[in-house]
Structures are given as C-alpha cells and as structure tokens.
C-alpha cells in the first residue's frame, strides 16, 4: 500500500500513489496517520481536562476547611417567649444579618426555627402553621413544619434547622443544623 516516493503514505482508496489523481499526488495525506494523530491529540486534551477536575475537588475541600471556623455560630437572643403568639410565627436573622429565619410556635410548648431560604433557589418560604407546613411561592415547594423536610415541589434538601434554647423566658438561637438527607 505504501508508495516508494512517499513511504508510510496511504491514500483513502488504498491504491498506490502513481495511480492517484494529480491533486492527490501533489497533496498526499496519510489518512491512517491522520486518524492516529487526531485521536492521540484528543486523548491528550481529555487528560488535560482530567487535571482541573481533580484540582476543583481539592479546592472545594480547602474551601470547606477554610469556612469551617466561620460556621461556628454564637448564641443570639431572638425574642421573649411571651411575645411569640401561639399558632403564629416570627422572623429573625441568624447567624448573620443576611440569613433570614422563621420561628414557629404551633402550640404553647413547641418552638421550631428554620432558615427561611428555600433549598431549591433561595426564595423566602412562608409559614402556614394551620397546615403544619412551610410554603415557597416561587415554585410551589412545601416543607414539613415539624421536620423541615421537603414534601412536594422541586426542593430536594430540607431547610436548615435553627437550634433553640429557652433561657429565662427569652428564646436564643444557638446553632444551625444542616441535614443533607
């Protein structure tokens, strides 16, 4: 298949080079060689994409490690227990001022608090204590008020729960419990 004048060169039709048209003799392309080089270069490109994937994974780990200290929330008073209506809800911000949260009081002895950001796209959820649920109006998502778990709609993760403590009649937020499942 190889031509004497062009060793290693193979035309697409497999004929020797002296039987090829003039244009092909002027510009001989070795197609098997071309395929080899193209696939080798594509393999190199894939290997080069492999490294950024590993670097991003490590970067996420480092970012998580750097944020770990910032995630230790402090205790913060929310409201006096007497000011929270039974069967009602109130809003507060915790742990930072840009983290809106909801405090629910379905009955006299029960207090529950969740982050107000929907775990789908971050819209503010609104409480519906009568129906024991939290509602996200953006995409009609519902969360169970007693657990924070999504019960319908596009959200797949539960709302982060705010840990509460009652200290001498004043409700304090003392932590955030993020549950992935």
């Amino acid at each position, binding site marked *: 298949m190889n031509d004497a004048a062009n060793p*290693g060169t193979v035309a697409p039709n497999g004929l020797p080079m002296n039987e090829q048209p003039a244009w092909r003799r002027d510009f001989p392309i070795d197609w*098997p*060689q071309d*395929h*080899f*080089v193209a*696939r*080798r270069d*594509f*393999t*190199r490109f*894939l*290997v080069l*994409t*492999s*490294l950024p*994937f*590993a670097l*991003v*994974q*490590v970067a*996420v*780990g480092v970012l*998580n490690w750097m944020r770990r200290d910032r995630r230790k929330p402090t205790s913060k008073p929310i409201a006096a227990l007497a000011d929270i209506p039974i069967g009602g809800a109130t809003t507060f911000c915790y742990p930072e001022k840009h983290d809106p949260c909801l405090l629910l009081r379905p009955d006299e002895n029960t207090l529950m608090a969740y982050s107000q950001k929907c*775990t789908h796209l971050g819209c503010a959820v609104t409480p519906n204590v009568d129906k024991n649920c939290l509602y996200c109006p953006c995409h009609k998502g519902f969360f169970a008020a007693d657990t924070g778990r999504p019960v319908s709609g596009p959200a*797949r*993760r539960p709302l*982060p729960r705010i840990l509460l403590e009652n200290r001498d009649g004043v409700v304090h937020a003392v932590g955030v419990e*993020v*549950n*992935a*499942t």
Partner: protein
Amino acid sequence: MNRSLTREQTTTILQGILCLVLFVVLLQVWLLTATMNAWMGGDDSVLWPAAAASAVCAFLNFGLLRYLNRLAV
C-alpha cells in the same frame, strides 16, 4: 519504544487508551457532581475521599498519556 508494533497495532492501543481515559474523565465528572450536591446539602464528609479519588483518576490518566507518548507513531 516498540518498533515491532505496526501502525494498525498502535492505533488499536491508542483507541483502547482513549476509551479508558474517556471513562475515567466521565467518572471524575460524576464525582464532582455528586460531591457538590452533597456539599451544598451540608454533607462535607465526602469531600476529601472524593478529592483523593479524583486525584487518583488524574494520575491514572497521566500515566496512560505517558505510555501513549512512548508509543511509536
């Protein structure tokens, strides 16, 4: 390296390496997606095992590329 290999043989080896590399890169894509999903949901226990697995995949790919570069063209 292997001058006894014909071009057809090296092309076959190349295609095998290409399939392996493609599979490993797809595995890394899946690892990154699953890791981000877990991390955004508050589960950070999988971050470092996934990073280690992805690094192993990258080393495997570079090993395959090194072998590929040694193949006679």
